[in-house]
């Protein structure tokens, strides 16, 4: 029977490919394209060694290390070293997201909706479905590794040899395989696909933060994070392959545990028990707003906690940052260095903007829930009761606005509580708190845009793409030297960076107006279109 556990894994793999070929190709294509474009841009913008050393000097501080990872080869900052330093960690994070989303589709989602039961009723092995999923993820990530590696090498940049380029690709691929295995394991633990996604993203995020804190304060800590391992390969500088092999081995062990747990559990069951729900709706849930909030409660609380931890993590490295800049100032007293305070502040505003963008994710997810409800034919039940359509969507909007407040406040609290604790002098609690809160109106613009797409009933992906764009602007805007008009397309850019600059009432007001305009437009479109389900 052992040999039959994986029976028909080939045909099931082909089914996955049939369902996901476009999705998989789109992911791989995006990774390759973005990696290549970035290299070309670096090579173009920083063509001389002097220019690169100049940039390297500004990168050598704890704040940047926490954000993007340790830099290797900073004393001889080649285009390759720059690429591995600036891009690799963030790309790994997104590769992780790809793996999580792809794996959950074919494991717990399919199981939850009874498709795995159908497959199991056919002459297939007990582990064929999860086996096929892991196999396809392995192939996908190998393809990603090879295409990226060869692509980078093909650019013919001096510091990017074949070995290093293949290592760069392998770092992406092995991270993808690692998080595919982690997700497969999580799929054995919780009974719902939402739970699997939540748990896997938590592991992904915590891994990144552990590395951030570890890289700044304690090297040993970074060894508890897969990001720590993979980045230790020091691509384009020392080109170590052993971290890749090590990560792969751990991934295989995790996948093995996932397969074992899958084999011994009942279909539909998970190892973390779910508790039963309430028998009656509370008075609160009997209102539509209350019900909407109630349905999103778990998600709101989880995100709030995550953002608090996120804020606290970066808040806690502010102390090291301040100390570092103070030291530099002592050494280079004569040079026209900006003060310690403003250097730390520079970092605070960057973190604040990034956190603001992250905080916008749950806000947008909150309105997009309407779409999901619609897809699953649940809206009819609600709309059939006496509630008008704009009011119905209005309730979702209200809940999303409440969500935005909760998210921003919890992230800001995390940053300012942890930050105020470790910072000696340069920044105060309220400075840190306000640094994030000022971005609220920008998140409402994104919320308004999401509402427009809900109103139109399509193109949701564009709203996410736009959020991704705003992130790229903040994250790479400086190093890639985007022209101003491109930067101006992001609402986050129009918010003045408190506490470096003064708070601007005018720009806040204008951005809020734009947000309101988009929201009204969304409600208007929604009233005019057919409800599909």
């Amino acid at each position: 029977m052992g040999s039959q556990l994986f029976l028909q894994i080939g045909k099931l793999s082909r089914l996955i490919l049939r369902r996901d070929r476009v999705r998989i190709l789109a992911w791989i294509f995006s990774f390759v394209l973005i990696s290549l474009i970035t290299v070309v841009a670096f090579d173009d913008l920083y063509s001389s060694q002097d220019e690169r050393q100049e940039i390297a000097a500004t990168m050598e501080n704890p704040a940047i290390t926490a954000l993007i990872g340790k830099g290797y080869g900073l004393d001889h900052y080649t285009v390759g070293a720059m690429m591995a330093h600036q891009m690799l960690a963030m790309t790994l994070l997104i590769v992780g997201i790809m793996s999580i989303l792809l794996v959950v589709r074919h494991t717990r989602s399919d199981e939850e909706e009874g498709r795995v039961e159908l497959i199991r009723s056919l002459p297939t092995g007990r582990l064929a479905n999860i086996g096929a999923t892991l196999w396809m993820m392995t192939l996908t990530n190998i393809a990603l590794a090879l295409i990226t590696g060869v692509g980078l090498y093909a650019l013919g940049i001096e510091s990017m040899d074949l070995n290093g380029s293949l290592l760069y690709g392998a770092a992406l691929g092995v991270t993808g395989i690692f998080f595919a295995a982690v997700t497969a394991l999580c799929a054995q633990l919780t009974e719902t696909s939402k739970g699997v996604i939540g748990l896997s993203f938590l592991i992904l995020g915590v891994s990144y933060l552990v590395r951030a804190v570890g890289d700044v304060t304690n090297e040993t800590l970074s060894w508890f994070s897969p990001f720590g391992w993979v980045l230790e390969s020091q691509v384009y500088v020392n080109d170590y392959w052993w971290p890749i092999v090590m990560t792969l081995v751990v991934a295989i062990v995790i996948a093995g545990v996932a397969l074992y747990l899958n084999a011994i559990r009942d279909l539909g069951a998970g190892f973390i028990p779910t508790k039963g729900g309430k028998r009656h709706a509370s008075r609160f849930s009997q209102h539509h707003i209350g019900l909407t909030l109630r349905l999103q409660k778990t998600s709101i609380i989880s995100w709030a906690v995550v953002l608090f931890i996120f804020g606290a993590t970066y808040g806690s490295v502010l102390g090291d940052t301040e100390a570092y800049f103070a030291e530099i100032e002592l050494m280079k007293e004569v040079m026209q260095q900006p003060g310690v305070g403003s250097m730390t502040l520079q970092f605070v505003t960057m973190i604040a903007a990034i956190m603001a963008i992250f905080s916008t994710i749950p806000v947008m997810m909150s309105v997009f829930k309407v779409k999901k409800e619609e897809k699953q034919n649940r809206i009819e039940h609600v709309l059939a009761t006496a509630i008008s359509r704009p009011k119905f969507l209005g309730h979702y909007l209200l809940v999303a606005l409440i969500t935005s407040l909760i998210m921003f406040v919890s992230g800001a609290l995390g940053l300012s509580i942890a930050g105020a604790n470790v910072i000696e002098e340069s920044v105060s609690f309220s400075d840190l708190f306000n640094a994030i809160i000022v971005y609220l109106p920008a998140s409402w613009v994104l919320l308004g845009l999401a509402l427009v797409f809900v109103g139109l009933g399509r193109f949701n992906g564009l709203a996410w793409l736009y959020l991704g764009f705003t992130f790229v602007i903040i994250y790479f805007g400086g190093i890639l030297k985007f022209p101003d008009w491109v930067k101006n397309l992001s609402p986050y850019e129009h918010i003045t960076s408190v506490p470096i600059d003064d708070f601007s009432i005018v720009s806040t007001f204008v951005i809020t107006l734009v947000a309101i305009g988009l929201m009204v437009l969304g409600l208007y479109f929604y009233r005019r279109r057919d409800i599909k389900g």
Partner: protein
Amino acid sequence: MVVLHAEGLTKQFGKVQALNGVNMEVKEGEVYGFIGPNGAGKSTTIRILLGILKASSGRASIFGKDVWRDAVDIHKRLAYVPGDVNLWSSLTGGEVIDFFTKMRGAEIDKKRKENLIDRFQLDPTKKCGTYSKGNRQKVALVSAFAADADLYILDEPTSGLDPLMERVFQECVMEAKEQGKSVILSSHILSEVERLCDTVGIIRQGEIIESGTLQDLRHLTRTNLLIETKTELTLQGLPGIHDVQQDGNTYQLQVDTEHLDQVIQHVSQSGVVKLESAPPTLEDLFMRHYEGEAGGVK
């Protein structure tokens, strides 16, 4: 020949005892009706028979093979349709049907497939994501009946079908039976079970409380009588009569089958003008077992 044999199946989900000693036997060419209220344990039993869930204790075999250990071999000769069918939204109905057939290792019998698609009035070119519940169920039914299986396991397969399609479904089951195939049909629709099934098992709170041929079971139950007599009847004191309705000298009542003889003898003394008797419907049988029961599980 016995196709399916189950003995003392129990299943525990944490603290919930879903099955509590289920016995079943299905013979070749037999249609076995599996009825019981929601949460009684029908689907759980079926999933154990499919080797998808592992029984906590007890044994079950299909085609003489163990349902858990030899699941793969058994599934080559078996087709299953669940009550709530979800399919892959990016695939068309036709693609799904072909996928199932190929997974069974069979060549696609185009004529048979087209014929079934026609009869169920399915549009196989549409993506599964756009199908209604009934249409998804049709896809599963077409794939099942297009398969050359020896045993069909159908778990409330008609819950999304309209009456016309239900008829087509019943025809398909009858045809399978004529070809000597066995069917397990779990259902809420008693008329359907009555029309199709040779044997019936009634499950309640994880236990089969009654099983046998429809004939057998009817012996256990009441007969409906309509009697008109010349003189007034005194029914008081007679054993085994229920739900008496009187309209002049016309009486409608139910009699426990074991007391039928006694009642008829008594009635005949009053000069019978008219006597109609109707066999109990499965409905009656069912209701009698569940009188006062709100559901399977408290």
